[in-house]
C-alpha cells in the first residue's frame, strides 16, 4: 500500500487537493469550516431559495423544509427525528401553492426512485444507467390497465392498489431479465449496457403501437381512491408517494443491515472472494436488480396516476440521469443522501426556475428552467473531483474514499 516508487506526476490535482484540503482542515479556521460550514451554507441557500420571486409565505415554507430536512438527515436517525421529518413534510406543504406542491411531488417521487436505485448502485455496487426502464414498466402497466380505452373492465377505484403490487412484481421480473445478461460485466460496460436497455425499452414502447399506443401515449388515466375519497390531485398523491418513500427507506435500510446487505457489500469489495466464502453472487446481484426495479415500478404507477396521461417521451434517458445524479451527488449507499440529492437536484432548480443572473456580460435568464442540465453536468464533475463520496455518504462509503485520499496524500509527500 506504500508508495511504490512510481515517479510522482506532480501536476496531479487529486493529490494536490488532498494535501491542500488536509492542510486546510488542520488550521483552526479550516476545522471550523469543515465542521460547521454546511450548517451555515445550507440555510443561506434555503434563504436564497426563499427569496426567489413568488409568494413569500410559501417560499419560506419551502426554505424551511430544505434546511430542516438537511439537518435532520445529517443527524442520527431516531424515531423522534423521523417523526419530526414526517410531521414537517406533512404539514408544511399544506401551506404551499399548487406549483410548489407539484414540486414536492416530484421531489418525493425522485426520492423514491433514488431509494430504489440506491439499492442497485449504493448497496450492490452495480452502476445502472437505464433505471427509467423499470419506472416506465410500472407507469405503462397502470396506464394500460386502468385507462378506460384499454384495460376497461377494472373497477377504477380499487385498481390502483391492485396494480401497485402487480407493477412491482412485473418490474422486478424485468429487472431480473435485464440483469441476467449483464451480470458478468464490469463497471463501465455494465453502465453502457444498462443505458442501452433503457433506450431500447423506450424505443419499443414508442413503436409497439398495438400494445402501447405508440408515441400518442395513453391518457384518461383515472385517479386512485382510498375508501371513498378520490385522490385527485398531485397533493393527495404526494402523500401516497411520501408513504412509499418511508416504507421503501425502512425496508432498504433493514435489508442493508442484514445478511443480505453484508453479502452485497462483500460483493462490492471483492466479488470473487465473496463467492469463495459461499455467497452466490449471481443470485444476490439479481436480487439487487429486482428490488431496485420493483421500487422503480412502484414509482411509475404513482407517476401515471398523477399525470393522467403518459407518453414514451416521458421515459427518456434524462430520468435515469436525474436519478443516478441525485444518488451520487447526495451520497451513495445512504437513504439520507438520496433525499438530500432529490431536494438539491429536483427542488432547487424548480424553485430557481425564473431566477436570473448576470455573469460578466452574459445575462442568463431562467436559470432553473433552461440551465438546469448545464449546471447538472458541471455539478457531477465537480462532485466527482472534489467529493466523490457525495454530500451525505454512508459511513462505509466515507471510509472507502478516505482510503483513496490517504493513499493520495502519502503519494504527494
Amino acid at each position: 500500500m506504500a508508495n511504490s516508487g512510481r515517479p510522482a506526476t506532480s501536476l496531479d490535482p487529486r493529490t494536490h487537493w488532498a494535501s491542500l484540503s488536509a492542510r486546510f482542515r488542520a488550521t483552526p479556521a479550516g476545522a471550523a469550516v469543515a465542521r460547521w460550514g454546511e450548517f451555515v451554507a445550507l440555510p443561506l441557500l434555503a434563504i436564497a431559495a426563499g427569496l426567489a420571486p413568488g409568494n413569500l409565505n410559501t417560499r419560506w415554507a419551502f426554505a424551511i423544509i430544505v434546511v430542516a430536512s438537511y439537518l435532520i438527515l445529517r443527524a442520527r436517525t431516531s424515531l423522534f427525528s423521523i417523526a419530526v421529518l414526517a410531521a414537517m413534510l406533512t404539514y408544511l406543504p399544506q401551506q404551499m401553492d399548487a406549483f410548489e406542491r407539484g414540486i414536492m411531488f416530484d421531489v418525493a417521487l425522485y426520492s423514491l426512485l433514488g431509494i430504489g436505485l440506491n439499492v442497485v448502485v449504493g448497496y450492490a455496487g452495480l452502476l445502472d444507467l437505464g433505471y427509467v426502464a423499470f419506472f416506465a414498466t410500472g407507469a405503462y402497466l397502470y396506464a394500460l390497465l386502468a385507462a378506460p380505452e384499454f384495460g376497461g373492465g377494472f373497477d377504477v377505484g380499487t385498481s390502483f392498489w391492485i396494480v401497485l403490487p402487480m407493477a412491482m412484481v412485473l418490474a422486478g421480473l424485468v429487472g431480473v431479465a435485464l440483469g441476467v445478461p449483464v451480470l458478468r460485466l464490469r463497471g463501465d460496460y455494465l453502465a453502457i449496457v444498462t443505458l442501452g436497455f433503457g433506450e431500447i425499452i423506450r424505443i419499443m414502447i414508442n413503436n409497439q403501437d398495438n400494445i402501447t399506443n405508440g408515441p400518442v401515449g395513453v391518457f384518461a388515466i383515472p385517479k386512485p381512491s382510498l375508501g371513498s375519497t378520490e385522490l385527485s390531485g398531485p397533493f393527495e398523491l404526494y402523500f401516497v408517494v411520501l408513504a412509499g418513500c418511508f416504507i421503501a427507506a425502512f425496508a432498504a435500510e433493514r435489508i442493508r443491515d442484514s445478511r443480505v446487505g453484508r453479502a452485497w457489500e462483500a460483493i462490492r469489495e471483492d466479488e470473487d472472494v465473496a463467492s469463495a466464502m459461499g455467497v452466490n453472487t449471481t443470485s444476490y446481484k439479481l436480487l439487487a436488480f429486482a428490488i431496485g426495479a420493483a421500487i422503480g415500478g412502484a414509482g411509475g404507477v404513482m407517476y401515471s396516476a398523477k399525470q393522467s396521461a403518459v407518453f414514451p417521451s416521458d421515459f427518456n434517458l434524462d430520468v435515469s440521469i436525474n436519478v443516478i445524479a441525485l444518488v451520487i451527488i447526495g451520497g451513495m449507499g445512504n437513504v439520507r443522501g438520496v433525499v438530500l440529492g432529490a431536494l438539491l437536484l429536483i427542488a432547487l432548480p424548480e424553485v430557481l426556475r425564473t431566477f436570473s443572473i448576470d455573469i460578466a456580460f452574459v445575462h442568463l435568464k431562467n436559470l432553473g428552467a433552461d440551465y438546469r442540465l448545464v449546471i447538472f453536468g458541471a455539478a457531477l464533475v465537480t462532485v466527482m473531483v472534489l467529493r466523490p463520496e457525495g454530500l451525505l455518504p454512508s459511513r462505509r462509503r466515507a471510509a472507502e474514499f478516505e482510503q483513496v485520499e490517504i493513499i493520495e496524500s502519502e503519494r504527494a509527500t
Partner: protein
Amino acid sequence: MAILSIRNVGRAFEGLIALNDVSIEVEPLSIVGIIGPNGAGKTTLFNLLTGFYRPTSGEVWFEGKRIDGLPLHRIAAAGISRTFQNIRLFSNMTAIENVLVGAHLHLHTNVVSAVLRPPPVAREERSATTMAVGLLSFVGLAGRENELARNLAYGEQRRLEIARALAVRPRLLLLDEPTAGMNPGESAAMTKLIRELRDDLKITIVLIEHQMRVVMGVCEQIAVLDHGEKISEGKPEEVQKDPRVIEAYLGTGRPLFEDAS
C-alpha cells in the same frame, strides 16, 4: 478413503502449462504441505481446488463427490474454504463483518425476513455474532471485532482471514502461505494455531509454505511441485532427502534443510 483426491490434474493457459498431471491424495484430518520453488504451480493448484480455475484435464474429488468445474460458492458449500497468498480481506468492513460474511452459508435471513426481522431472525443474528466473536478470539483477535480490516496489523489480518475461512465451517481448509512475512516468533504462533485447527476443530488442512521450519514442524505429509509437476511426495524426512527435491531448489546436491530439525 482420501478426503481430497486430485487426479491427474492439468491446467494450461495460452502457451503456458501451469500444472501437468498432478495427483495427490489427502487423508482426512491430516496436515499436508505443498512446497516447491517459486512458479511451481502451487497457488494455481489452490485456485483450481477452490473453483477459481477449471482444470484443463483431470478431476478433483472431495468426500466422494466431483468438484472440479463447480462454481465457487458451491465448493464453499461442499465444505472447502481458503486463505489467500496476498491477503484478500474485505478491507472496508470490520473484522466481525468479515467473519459474518464467511458464515453466510449457515445463516438463513432472506430479503423478506430481513425487513420484518421476526424473533428467529434476531436470534440467529445474535448467535452468529457470538460465534464470530468466538472465532476471532480463537485466532487471537479478541477485542478487535469492530476494527476495519484494513486498519489491522499484518499478522492480525492473516489471522482474520483464517477466522473468516473458519466461519464457512469447512472440513478442508486451504492455507496459502500463512506465515508469509512473519518473523520466527509469529510463525511459531501460527504453527500452533494450525495444529489447533486440526486437533480442536477437526479440519483437514492443506497448506502452501515456503518456510521450511514450519513445513517440517507441522506437516505430516508433503507434496513437492516443480514446473507444474509433482516431483516428490511423502513424509517430511523422506522428502527432505530426496535428491530430486534438492535439485529443484538448489540445482546441486547440497543439503537443503539445514535449519529444520
